[in-house]
């Protein structure tokens, strides 16, 4: 009873491995969604012919159910006939017998690609909306003083959209940390449990092995890990700001 559940789980190496995988999964998902989202938002805000059209399409990945996202990416990444694998092999980027779902690292990479595809439109739209409200006089002033594109981004654009980036990153962190559907569909935690994140583990313990107490203990750990990270990042941010002002 009570604390013994936690002791049992903390001494289980599989749990630690799942925690570690959850962090890898979350880190790469948030990172790539942020980069792709920021890039596409900057590109679209440039306002070229057809940018409005692309912007109206950008919600497709987000509206598509994530289970379907998982399935379509696993079809596209199939060993031989998957269109992406086929192209990569044609261009000789990967060896002839390459399969995404044979090793843990490549399975994880495949699922991260799918999840990034689903997550980045959120960044794109939020950042695009913010980019469109940048005060024109700031941009003009910077341009008159001779700022080039890079400096304009560094000193005008970035400080202005920073708060939106932080909010979106928080949300994306929470969503990725808890993500289940895509991993379940694409890898089912495999091969050999190498893509089993905490979400997958909780669901499996509860509804395949019927180890309800294990699952609920793990849920609690998961929740406090997530909240703990958010609190730590928040404190670190505050500390950083203080140090800078001193």
């Amino acid at each position, binding site marked *: 009873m009570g604390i013994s559940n936690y002791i049992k789980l903390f001494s289980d190496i599989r749990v630690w491995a799942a925690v570690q995988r959850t962090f890898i999964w979350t880190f790469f998902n948030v990172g790539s969604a942020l980069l792709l989202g920021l890039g596409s938002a900057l*590109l*679209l*805000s*440039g*306002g*070229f012919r057809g*940018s*409005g059209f*692309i912007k*109206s399409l950008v*919600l*497709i*990945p987000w*509206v*598509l*159910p*994530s*289970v*379907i996202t998982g*399935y*379509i990416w696993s*079809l*596209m990444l*199939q060993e*031989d*006939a*998957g*269109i992406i694998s*086929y192209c990569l092999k*044609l261009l000789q980027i990967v060896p002839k017998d390459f399969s995404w779902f044979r090793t843990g690292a490549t399975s994880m990479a495949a699922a991260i690609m799918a999840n990034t595809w689903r997550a980045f439109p959120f960044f794109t*739209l939020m950042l*695009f*909306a913010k980019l*469109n*409200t*940048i005060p024109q006089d700031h*941009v003009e002033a910077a*341009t008159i003083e001779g700022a080039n*594109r890079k400096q*304009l981004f560094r000193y*005008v654009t970035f400080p202005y959209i920073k708060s939106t980036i932080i*909010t979106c990153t928080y949300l994306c962190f929470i969503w990725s*940390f*808890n993500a*289940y*559907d895509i991993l*379940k569909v694409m890898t089912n935690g495999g091969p050999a449990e190498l893509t089993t994140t*905490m979400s997958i583990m*909780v*669901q499996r313990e*509860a*509804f395949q092995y019927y180890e*309800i107490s294990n*699952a*609920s203990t793990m*849920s*609690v750990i*998961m929740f406090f890990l*997530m*909240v703990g990270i958010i609190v730590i990042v928040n404190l670190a941010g505050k500390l950083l700001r203080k140090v800078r002002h001193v």
Partner: protein
Amino acid sequence: MSRKTNPNNSSFMLIRSRRSARQKLLIAVLAIVLFLIIVFPFYWIVLSSFKTFLEIFEVPPSIIPVRLDLFNYIEAFEVYQIGTFILNSLFVTIITVLCTTIISTCASFSVTRLEFKGSKQFQNFLKMTQMFPVVVLLVPLFLMCAKLNLYGTQGSLILPYIALQIPVSVILLSTYFVDIPMEIEEAAIIDGCNLFQTFTYVMLPLAVSGIVAVSIYTFIQVWQEFLIASSFITKHSSYTLTVGLTTFHGEFINWGGLMATSVIIAVPAMVLFTVSQDFFINRLAGGVKE
């Protein structure tokens, strides 16, 4: 106050006139890549839904449709009983949307218009619930459903869905109610409306576009839910559509049928999203940032 995006108000507009040919080419290439990244997987779903099993595993894969044959769709309905899953999904989704909309409309009206003790704290609390992961709620929800003898039935989906959707709906709907001028409400009270009449005759008609938009959002969220549905529904005949997708796994995966069903699931969400696109882009952007 909806945030209309103005293409002329872009930070990069000034520089636009000075773009060289090389920059234009770079932008064009990047735009095409972005377009392909967004659209191609969806195109591949539709394309694959018209392919036979052998065509899907053809090397090299054909990227243009050979013919538009509906056999995957017919098979999905006749062999895999997608019809039942559609009805199940519709049942669960419609009940959830109705209950969520009614409850959250009343809730957001009272939170924004009636200043009661703790209304601010309540709103903050709602925002905090957004942080709560559904996976973590899985076990407690399961225990509650088991206690209520709901486990395995569609009631075990509807109740959690309503509970999970209400906070989001209240947050989004509150932004609508806040925008309605106080004067209108005061005028109604002076004309002799009581609280209930003010709500039904004055506030509801004014907020109706918001209510519809939030219902659509709820619909899309519930329509595509997988985690709870796949954990709580055990009987084949009670499967919702997303869980129904897993029936295409047998000895091998029937990709054609799977993709056909995916199209059937995706289309309603897409149509609803297109209808309410303005809401998605402007309101959601506003709601999330505040």
